[in-house]
C-alpha cells in the first residue's frame, strides 16, 4: 500500500486502535487534517486551545488506561501544548503528541510559526522524535506508542515537518507489528531475593505502614495491593495520585497522607517501624521535611523506575520492577510463610491509630449557614455512592475533593498531582466523558482554576459531553489566600478575583445549563437535579464560605507529627 505521509499518520492511528485524537489545526498540519477528513475511524475532537487538547487527552488516558493522542500545529500550537505535556509527564501519563513542524528546508531559519519544539519539550517528555524521512514515519509512530505506554509511562512527542506529509509523495506503508529498542527494556521483573527480604521485614514489623501511590493505578496493581493489604491487616495510606488504588471506605484505609493528609495517616507514617512504599515517589508534598521523615522506619520501596529509588529518601530494601507481578509474588510469599503478622503488636498499633483517627482531623462545621466546600464534596460522594469519575483543578477544592470523596476504585480520581496545573479539570472531564460516555463525570473546580481553560465549554457543547462542573466559588485563589493568611499576615496580595463573570450566564451562552447555589439546603437537591440531566453539561456555581481553609496541614519545613489542625481540634487529649 502506497500512502502519503499525512495518510500514513492517520493509518498508523487506526492500526494502533486510536479512538479519539484531540487537536487544533494549523498551517503545518493541513496535510494531516486533510487525511483525517477522508476517513471516519479516528474521531477528531476540536478543542479551543491546545492546552485543552493535552488535558482532554490526559483525562482520557487517566480514566481509560489507554494512551491519549494529541495533534497540534507548529509554533504556537506546539508551545500552547507544553503545559499539558509537562502535566502528563509529572504524573507519568501515556500520551502521544503529534506536532506539525515547518518544512525541513526552512527549519532553523526562524520561519513563520517555527519553534524548536523538540528542544522545548525535551525536559518534559519521556522521549521525543524529529522525523526527517517519510519512510521512517510509521516506525517512529510505533515507537512513540510503545515508549509512551510501557515501563514508567509518559508523553512522547513526534515532531513532523510539513514536507513529510505532502500528499504528492507516496511511499509504501506497513505498520510494524512490534518494536524493540536496544537501549530500552521496560519489562523489569522484581528481584526474587529482594522480594523475599522485603516480605520477611514486613512480617517482622510491629508498627507497619503501607504507603502507595499513582504507580499502583498506572501499573493496574490495585487488586494485588488490596489483597496484600487485607492479608496482612496493616494500615494503608494513599498519596494524592494513588487515591482509589485501595478502597477509600475500607477500615484499613487511614486516608490520604502528606501536606493535607489526615492526622492518623501522617502520625502513623511518623511512628511506623516498617514502611513499604509501592509506586510512590517520596514527593516533597508527601514527606514534609526530609530530615524527620519516618524516623523509626526501615523502608521498602517498589518502583518500576530505578531513578525513583533513593532519590529523596534512602531505602533499605529497593525492588525495581513492575508492581503487579511484584505484589503478586509478595502475596504468595506471605501466604506460604510460617511467620505471620504479630497480632498482638498489630492490635496495639491499631489502637494507637484509632485514637489518632478519633480526633477527626477532617471535621468541619456541618451546620454552618454558609455553604462549606467540604459539605458539597461530601454530598456529591453520598449521592454518587462514590462511583463517579471526579476530575479536579488545583487548589483548595482539589484537596477537599481528595479528602471527602472516598474513591473505592482506581482511575476514578483524575487530577494534576505533580505539576499542579490549574485549568486541567474541565478538559480532563471532557476526555473522561468521551472514554466513558455513560458514566457520571464531575469536575470539582474553583472560580480561579476554571477560568484558565474556560474556552473548552465550547468543546463540551460541540461533542455533547455532558459533564457536571462543581465550581466551589469563594472569590479567591483559595489555596494561595490560605498560605497568605498563615504565613504572610493575611496580606492577600493579588489573590482576590475582583471581577468574576456571571458563571450562570456564561454557561448558558455556551449552550449549557448554569445554576447558582447560595444556600446549604439547596446543595443536595441541586446536585441531584444536575445529575438527572444526563445529556446536559451543567455548571453549578456554589458560592461557598470564602474564609474556609484546608485542614489539617503540614506547613513548610515541618514533619508529619507537627500538623496544624483546624481551630478547635485539640491534640492535648490523652492519646493511646
Amino acid at each position, binding site marked *: 500500500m502506497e500512502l502519503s505521509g499525512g495518510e500514513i499518520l492517520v493509518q498508523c492511528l487506526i492500526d494502533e486502535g486510536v479512538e479519539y485524537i484531540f487537536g487544533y489545526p494549523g498551517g503545518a498540519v493541513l496535510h494531516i487534517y486533510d487525511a483525517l477528513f477522508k476517513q471516519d475511524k479516528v474521531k477528531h475532537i476540536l478543542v479551543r486551545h491546545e492546552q485543552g487538547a493535552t488535558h482532554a487527552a490526559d483525562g482520557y488516558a487517566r480514566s481509560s488506561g489507554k494512551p491519549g493522542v494529541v495533534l497540534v500545529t507548529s509554533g504556537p500550537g506546539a508551545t500552547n501544548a507544553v503545559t499539558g505535556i509537562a502535566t502528563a509527564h509529572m504524573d507519568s501519563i501515556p500520551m502521544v503528541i503529534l506536532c506539525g513542524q515547518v518544512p525541513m528546508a526552512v527549519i532553523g531559519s526562524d520561519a513563520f510559526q517555527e519553534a524548536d519544539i523538540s528542544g522545548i519539550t*525535551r*525536559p518534559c517528555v519521556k522521549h*521525543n522524535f524529529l522525523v526527517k524521512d517519510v519512510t521512517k514515519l510509521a516506525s517512529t509512530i510505533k515507537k512513540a506508542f510503545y515508549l509512551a505506554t510501557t515501563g514508567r509511562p509518559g508523553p512522547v512527542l513526534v515532531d513532523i515537518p510539513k514536507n513529510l506529509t505532502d500528499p504528492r509523495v507516496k511511499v509504501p506503508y506497513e505498520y510494524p507489528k512490534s518494536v524493540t529498542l536496544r*537501549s530500552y527494556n521496560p519489562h523489569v521483573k522484581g528481584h526474587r531475593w529482594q522480594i523475599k527480604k522485603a516480605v520477611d521485614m514486613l512480617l517482622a514489623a510491629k508498627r507497619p505502614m503501607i504507603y502507595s501511590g499513582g504507580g499502583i493505578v498506572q501499573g493496574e496493581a490495585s487488586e494485588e495491593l488490596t489483597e496484600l493489604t487485607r492479608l496482612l491487616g496493616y494500615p494503608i495510606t494513599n498519596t494524592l495520585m494513588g487515591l482509589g488504588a485501595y478502597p477509600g471506605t475500607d477500615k484499613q484505609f487511614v486516608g490520604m497522607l502528606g501536606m493535607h493528609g489526615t492526622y492518623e495517616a501522617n502520625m502513623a507514617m511518623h511512628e511506623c517501624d516498617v514502611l513499604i512504599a509501592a509506586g510512590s515517589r517520596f514527593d516533597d508534598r508527601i514527606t514534609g521535611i526530609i530530615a524527620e521523615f519516618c524516623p523509626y522506619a526501615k523502608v521498602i520501596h517498589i518502583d518500576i523506575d*530505578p*531513578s525513583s*529509588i533513593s532519590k529523596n529518601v*534512602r531505602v533499605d530494601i529497593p525492588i525495581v520492577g513492575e508492581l503487579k507481578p511484584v505484589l503478586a509474588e509478595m502475596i504468595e510469599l506471605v501466604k506460604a510463610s510460617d511467620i505471620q503478622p504479630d497480632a498482638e503488636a498489630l492490635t496495639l498499633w491499631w489502637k494507637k491509630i484509632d485514637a489518632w483517627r478519633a480526633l477527626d482531623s477532617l471535621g468541619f462545621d456541618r451546620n454552618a449557614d454558609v455553604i462549606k466546600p467540604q459539605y458539597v464534596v461530601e454530598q456529591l460522594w453520598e449521592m454518587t455512592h462514590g462511583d463517579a469519575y471526579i476530575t479536579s483543578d488545583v487548589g483548595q477544592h482539589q484537596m477537599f475533593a481528595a479528602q471527602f470523596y472516598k474513591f473505592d476504585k482506581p482511575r476514578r480520581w483524575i487530577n494534576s498531582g505533580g505539576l499542579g496545573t490549574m485549568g486541567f479539570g474541565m478538559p480532563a472531564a471532557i476526555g473522561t466523558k468521551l472514554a466513558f460516555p455513560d458514566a457520571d463525570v464531575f469536575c470539582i473546580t474553583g472560580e480561579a482554576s476554571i477560568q484558565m481553560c474556560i474556552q473548552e465549554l465550547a468543546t463540551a457543547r460541540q461533542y455533547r459531553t455532558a459533564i457536571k462542573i462543581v465550581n466551589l466559588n469563594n472569590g479567591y485563589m483559595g489555596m494561595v489566600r490560605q498560605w497568605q493568611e498563615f504565613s504572610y499576615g493575611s496580606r492577600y496580595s493579588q489573590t482576590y478575583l475582583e471581577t468574576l463573570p456571571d458563571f450562570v450566564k456564561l454557561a448558558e451562552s455556551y449552550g449549557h445549563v448554569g445554576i447558582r447555589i447560595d444556600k446549604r439546603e439547596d446543595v443536595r437537591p441541586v446536585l441531584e437535579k444536575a445529575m438527572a440531566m444526563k445529556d446536559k453539561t451543567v455548571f453549578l456555581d456554589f458560592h461557598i464560605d470564602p474564609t474556609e481553609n484546608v485542614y489539617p496541614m503540614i506547613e513548610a519545613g515541618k514533619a508529619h507529627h507537627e500538623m496544624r489542625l483546624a481551630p478547635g481540634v485539640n491534640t492535648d487529649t490523652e492519646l493511646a
Partner: protein
Amino acid sequence: MSHIISILIENESGALARVAGLFSARGYNIESLTVAPTQDSTLSRMTLVTTGSDEIIEQITKQLNKLIDVVKLIDISESTHIERELMMVKTRAVNGGREEIMRLAEIFRGNILDVTATTFIIEITGEKSKLDAFLNTVGEENIIEVVRSGTTGILRGERGLTV
C-alpha cells in the same frame, strides 16, 4: 570525588542535548564532556567527568540510564582504568625562554607542533593532573592560549563498554 562516566549513546540528533539538558535541569556538575562516533556509526561514545556525593552519582547514572537514547554506561573510575586528556598550549617563547620551554616539553613528553619567532604550540597528553602540572610549571605569564579536550578513558583488561 571526580567520577568518569563512559556512555554509549545512539548517534541521533538531540542525543547530546538530552545529556547536557539533564545535567542543567537537575543541577548536576559537568567538569568535562567529550563525544565522538565509535567504529559503529550508529553509536557515539561520550565521556563525562562529574563530581558529587555517592547519592548524587547514583542518581546521575540512573537518570542517564533512563534517557531512551542511552544504550549503556559505566562509571569507569570505579575500576582500574586509563584516562587521558589532550592539551595544546600556545606559549610565549622568546630569548632564553625558548630553551627552557623546550626542555619542559620534553620532560612532560610533549610534542612541539608549531614554532614561530615568538611562540610554540605544545601538545601534551596525559591525566588531568599531569596537564595541570605542566601549565603550572610553564607559568601563567608564558601562556598565551590553552585548549583541552576533556578527559576520556577506557577500562583495563577484558572488561569494557560495548553493546
